[in-house]
């Protein structure tokens, strides 16, 4: 039952993200637009390029969607509304997100097109930059909760949300989560103005629809992760827990899209330099500070 609710929730979230992205990029607000666009993609011919690596070409969009869904599987919307409350939840989400990289590399290599391939490798460059900034803030969050259980992580934020308890970690995680979803300003692997849409360049029809859906679900999953790890998940007064979760997830997703709208694109090598020279030392500092605060009993 909770599987069904969470999948429906993710789809609703993906729809909201699509609406918001439309509003930001095209300035239009048409509630039916994402559905019509999806229907149009499904009805259109799905072209296969000449000499593709067929296996990778077909698997990639599905793998992206599965990775995004698996990442959401360990995130609770309320104390009981969770697909799998794994003892390794905080680690499992990293494992699921690692397959976003695999999916994009396959999508880049599969169609046998230069633009797509460069887009795929660009994402690999991006992963090497941001991946530590996903793992290390989660480490600090787990230190405070003294557990990798995502429900315990939410429970540890009864007093102070982690956003206030460890603002440094929140900031780093937020930036890194933009890069995971290859949202602007880190959208060089798939931006339309770059490489004719990079990894998406050779996909059409139903395959493109799945690829786009996978990306939207990924944005919702990352927003849910941010909410669970830093915004106290379902915690909040008056309203029922799942409403708080939904509100926080939507707010974070909106913030993610807005941040990209106002920032200039960042090239992979610049991102790499910034992440390794500044981001990782800051993330280590965050772990140290949280460690001291936990020992001091704060």
């Amino acid at each position: 039952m909770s599987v069904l609710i969470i999948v429906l929730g993710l789809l609703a979230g993906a729809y909201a993200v699509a609406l918001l992205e439309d509003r930001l990029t095209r300035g239009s607000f048409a509630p039916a637009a994402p559905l019509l666009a999806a229907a149009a993609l499904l009805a259109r011919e799905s072209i296969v390029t000449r000499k593709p690596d067929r296996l990778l070409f077909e698997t990639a969009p599905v793998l992206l969607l599965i990775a995004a869904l698996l990442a959401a599987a360990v995130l609770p919307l309320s104390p009981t509304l969770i697909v799998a409350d794994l003892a390794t939840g905080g680690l499992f989400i990293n494992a699921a997100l690692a397959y976003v990289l695999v999916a994009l590399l396959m999508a880049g290599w599969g169609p046998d097109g230069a633009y797509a391939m460069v887009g795929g490798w660009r994402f690999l460059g991006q992963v090497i930059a941001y991946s530590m900034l996903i793992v290390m803030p989660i480490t600090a969050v787990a230190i405070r909760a003294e557990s990798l259980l995502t429900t315990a992580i939410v429970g540890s934020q009864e007093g102070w949300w982690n956003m206030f308890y460890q603002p440094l970690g929140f900031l780093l995680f937020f930036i890194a989560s933009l890069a995971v979803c290859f949202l602007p300003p880190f959208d060089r692997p798939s931006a339309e103005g770059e490489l004719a849409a990079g990894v998406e360049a050779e996909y059409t029809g139903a395959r493109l629809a799945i690829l786009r859906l996978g990306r939207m679900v990924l944005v919702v999953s990352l927003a849910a992760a941010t909410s669970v790890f830093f915004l106290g998940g379902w915690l909040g007064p008056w309203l029922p827990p799942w409403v708080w979760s939904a509100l926080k997830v939507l707010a974070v997703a909106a913030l993610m899209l807005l941040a990209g709208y106002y920032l200039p694109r960042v090239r992979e090598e610049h991102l790499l330099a910034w992440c390794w020279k500044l981001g990782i030392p800051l993330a280590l500092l965050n772990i140290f500070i949280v460690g001291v605060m936990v020992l001091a009993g704060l």
Partner: protein
Amino acid sequence: MQTFFIGFFGLAAIVFAVAVFRTSSMMRSALALLFSQTALGALFLALQAEFLGVLQIMMMATEMSIMAIFMVMFMMDPGGLGGMDMSHQKRLSMIAGLGAVMLVSAIAAYTRWQELASLSQAAAADEQIRHLGRELLGRSMLVFETAGITILTAMIATTAVAVKVPAENASHES
């Protein structure tokens, strides 16, 4: 049920491992290796070693992807269009492979499984993580820190060897 999953993921690991050598495309070979390792991670999960399984599944995705880009960069035929052979040193590999199979079979045959089964009951996953943490930050800390620092040194040394010589030295040499 557990036996089924252990068998399933074990077979999947073997099938993907064979695929590594059956293809001539670098990319397919690297990804087959990745999915073979992922299947091993899933096998650990089926064996109730949750932390180890999830860690294996996570680490291999990035590692094998990075290996893929290096293979594509340095090999003359990454797409495998020329029908490249992925195997080499065949006799040595065969002997090593046979030896490994015999060793594993011997271990499987001579282990007293009944006694082991009665002895150890897998601890709950959160208990396992607690034990692992105490082990890594206690008795085994020195070993792990030494290994970590060695790897870090190797990484820095490799980078130092690989980076371009600064301009003033370069002009001096030429």
